[in-house]
C-alpha cells in the first residue's frame, strides 16, 4: 500500500498529476448526485445529470490522455457522450414541457401518478 508521500514523489515531474483531475471530476460527480437527490424540479435534476455526465467525460479524456496518449478511444467516448447528452436533454426537455403542460409545474413528484 502506497502512502501519500510516495504518490507525490512519483508524480513530481508531471505538469498536473492525474489524481488532481480525478478529484475534480469526483467532486463534480457527487455534486451532481447531490443535486439529483435533493431537487424536486425535473429541470434541476436534469442539470445535475449534466454535471454527472461531465464528470464522466473528464475521466474519459484524462485517462485517455495519461494512459494511452497515442490512442483516441477515451476522447471519442467523451465525444459521443456529449452527443448522447444532447439527445437526452432534447427528449427530457420535451417530456418536461409535457409534464408542465399537464400538471402546471415541473415537479418530479407529479410523475408518481403515472405509475400503474
Amino acid at each position, binding site marked *: 500500500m502506497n502512502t501519500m508521500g510516495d504518490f507525490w514523489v512519483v508524480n513530481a515531474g508531471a505538469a498536473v498529476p492525474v489524481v488532481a483531475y480525478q478529484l475534480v471530476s469526483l467532486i463534480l*460527480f457527487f455534486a451532481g448526485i447531490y443535486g439529483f437527490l435533493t431537487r424536486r424540479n425535473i429541470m434541476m435534476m436534469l442539470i445535475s445529470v449534466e454535471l454527472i455526465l461531465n464528470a464522466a467525460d473528464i475521466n474519459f479524456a484524462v485517462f485517455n490522455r495519461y494512459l494511452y496518449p497515442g490512442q483516441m478511444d477515451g476522447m471519442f467516448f467523451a465525444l459521443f457522450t456529449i452527443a448522447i447528452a444532447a439527445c437526452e436533454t432534447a427528449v427530457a426537455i420535451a417530456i418536461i414541457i409535457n409534464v408542465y403542460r399537464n400538471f402546471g409545474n415541473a415537479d418530479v413528484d407529479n410523475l408518481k401518478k403515472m405509475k400503474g
Partner: protein
Amino acid sequence: MTEQIIFYMLAIAITVFSIMAVTSKLIVRSATYLLFVLLATAGLYMLLDYYFLFAVQVSVYAGGIMVLFIMAIFLTHRPGTEVRTKHGWRIGLSVLLSLAGLLLCGDIILHNAVRLYQFTDAETITMQEMGTAMLGSGKNQYLLSFEMMSVLLLACIVGAILIARKTNGSEKETKETDQ
C-alpha cells in the same frame, strides 16, 4: 507551471460552480452556473490537448444544450420563483450519501493513483487523424458508433417532437376554447 496554475483555477471554478449549481434556489442561476462548469470543463480539455473535444464541448454543450435549457426554463418557470427542494431529512441523507461516496471513491483513487503512468508528452491529435478514426471501419475506428449516433440523434429529434407536441384531443380542446 502555467499549466498548473490554469488547472487549479479551472478546478476551483468547477468545484465551486458545480456546488453552487446544485444548491442555488433560482433555476436560471443554476443553469448559469452549469454553463460555467461546462466552460471550465472545456478548459480542462484544452489543457489535455484535446482541442476538438474542447470545441465540441463549447459549441454543443455550452452552446446548443444550454440554449435548450434556457428555453425550457423560460417555458416552464416564472422568473424569480424559487424551486422547491426535498425535506430536511432527505437533504441530510443526500449529503451523507454524497460525502460517503466522495470519501469512498477518493480513497480508491488516492490508493490506486500510483499505478497510473506519468503524463507523457505526445503529439497532439490532428483533425485528419480524428476524421480517419471517426469515419473508418477498421480497428480503433468509429464509423459504426458515429452512424449509430446520427441515428440516435434523428430518433431523438423525432421523439422529442412527438412527446412535446400537443395531443389531438387537447389540440381540439384548445381550438374550441379559442373559438
